[in-house]
């Protein structure tokens, strides 16, 4: 695990919990996503997730599907995503994880990709179409190539069987991305009331920090989850807020002002 990612879980969070944000690289442009990454980091986000756009995002709801379409029509690529991270690293030390479907990364060439990712300052990956047990080959290959500089963040679902959770519990670093419910990203499906029972049930089996994501968009959800987990992920709600601004056709100066309100709203979630 990178020192940057390690540091997040070695210290107490500012506010009620650690906050993980998600935006899509290149939505609507490279320059704007860079500015937003910096803004998020400056407003107390603990870990940044940066989406790599893909034409067929089967685990995503309408909000992130639309973000991927916008990024792709603006000619975003894997290479440009890595350049974006490199640019961000010149000014910020906040840990950053790439969230990507497998195919664009495989097509880039995995060995070249992990080397370039380390050089750009990426701290790890969340790969929604690589379940933990299928990922052994890729993890081994990555470790041989770049050591333990890049973390593979495991996902835990409500449907996960004990044997899967056991496999993940062998992991000694990073954190587990716990899905609040079955389904795709976005706020269209409510988080069930029993989510706290589920997260509590992982207390013994999962030794690494547990961060919860999917469908989180309100302060009261964050407060409730903060008591039982180590961090929360806000994705679609944030992408939607920025997309709304982008559709208004504002002058750049006004857009920047409005973005600050989004940053402040996000920061307020963990107060």
């Amino acid at each position, binding site marked *: 695990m990178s020192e940057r990612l390690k540091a997040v879980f070695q210290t107490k969070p500012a506010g009620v919990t650690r906050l993980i944000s998600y935006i899509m690289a290149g939505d609507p442009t490279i320059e704007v996503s860079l500015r937003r990454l910096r803004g998020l980091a400056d407003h107390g986000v603990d870990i940044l997730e940066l989406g790599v756009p893909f034409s067929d995002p089967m685990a995503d709801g309408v909000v992130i599907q639309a973000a991927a379409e916008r990024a792709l029509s603006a000619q975003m690529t894997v290479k440009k995503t890595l350049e974006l991270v490199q640019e961000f690293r010149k000014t910020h030390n906040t840990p950053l994880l790439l969230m990507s479907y497998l*195919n664009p990364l495989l*097509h*880039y060439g995995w060995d070249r990709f992990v080397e370039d990712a380390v050089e750009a300052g990426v701290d790890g990956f969340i790969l929604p*179409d690589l379940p933990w047990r299928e990922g052994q080959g890729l993890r081994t*290959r990555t470790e041989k190539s770049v050591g333990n500089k890049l973390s593979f963040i495991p996902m835990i679902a409500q*449907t*996960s069987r004990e044997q899967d959770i056991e496999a993940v519990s062998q992991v000694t670093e990073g954190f587990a991305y716990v899905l609040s419910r079955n389904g795709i990203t976005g706020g269209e499906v409510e988080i069930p009331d029993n989510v706290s029972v589920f997260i509590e049930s992982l207390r013994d089996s999962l030794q690494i920090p547990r961060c919860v994501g999917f469908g989180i968009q309100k302060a009261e959800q964050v407060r409730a989850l903060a008591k039982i987990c180590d961090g929360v992920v806000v994705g679609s709600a944030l992408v939607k807020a920025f997309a709304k601004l982008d559709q208004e056709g504002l002058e750049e100066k006004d857009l920047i002002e409005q973005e600050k309100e989004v940053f402040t709203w996000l920061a307020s979630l963990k107060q």
Partner: protein
Amino acid sequence: MVKEKLHVLSDGGYETKGHFGPYGGAYVPETLVPALRELEEAYLRSGQDESFQKEFRELLQRYVGRPSLFYEAKRLSEQLGGARIYLKREDLNHTGAHKINNTLGQILLAKAMGKKRVIAETGAGQHGVATATACALFALPCIVYMGEEDVRRQKLNVLRMKLLGAEVRTVTHGSCTLKDAINEALRDWVTNVEETFYCFGTAAGPHPYPTIVRDFQAVIGHETREQALKELGKLPDAIIACIGGGSNAIGIFHPFIPDPEVRLIGVEAGGTGNKTGENAATLCLGEPGVLHGAYSYLLQDDDGQIVVTTSVSAGLDYPGVGPEHSNLKETGRADYVSISDQEALDACSLLCQTEGILPALESAHAIAYAAKLAPRLSKDQVIVVNLSGRGDKDVETLAQYLEGGADHE
């Protein structure tokens, strides 16, 4: 070089079952992993369950009308000059295509697993109709996802699904064809996984689907083998089948894989040309990658994005292919070729006029390749074409073609 670069997922050995050489696997969201394992377990149990097997066999005989005919197309063969052409008449099955073999098997599994709701994707609508049919027979609610473009060009099948009591949900993003219908069905499944059975239509997707669909469709190949031995006293020299995802092809190929003297030829949609986006010839023109849960050949651009495909035939208009076909290509056991829209349309007319049989535009691709191959073979050689479906659903597209319009793109 390509292999070195791309076969990285299997580095260090295969973690899960369901690989065909380096291809296959189950690259799906974690939420679906237990559902796929549950399906695999139910499938393995069904293989040992005599009453399940008996019910499936009886449905195929008494409901589908199997065995399907093994018909010598004499006038077609005569006109082409060369090999004798036989047609495996899957078009005569109940619902008009091979798809029903698979959906009856899967719906029996759904029933055995106690699932209360069935979802499916469809391209040409044949799998949607076959799923809706099996669901009507077993009183299960059925939702079919279909791309907007396919809803437009396969109106007859949309109507049939509705008559059978299914709900057809139109998918309006991406290319609005089969790949987008699969994305949407997967999103439904991951959301409603506990009560839902996903009836997958082709021998692609995550493990165990490529194996399950192949095994339910292998009845085509087993019958062909028996019929050929009985009628000809030998195995055929070549077997030709069209390939979208590849279920009718793997179904007829599979029992012949151990017989090297039988050539296996898969025919892909060559569309309007060889440039990116002009066709759906995945094995001929693609590269390996991951889509819809499997590592297999894909049509993709320079950045690993899936490209929009073109084919006059909705059932072949898919940028992926089943993983077992990728491996048959890699090992050289099967050959894969492509046939253009125009050649398929011409073959459709040819079969109508020589044999009085209207093939589906999908199957017309296989006929078109047989028409190219037959003259190069001798009169004592035999080609079997899997006539996977009938063409009633395609009459609108064919009408445009007959009127000389090029509006089929």
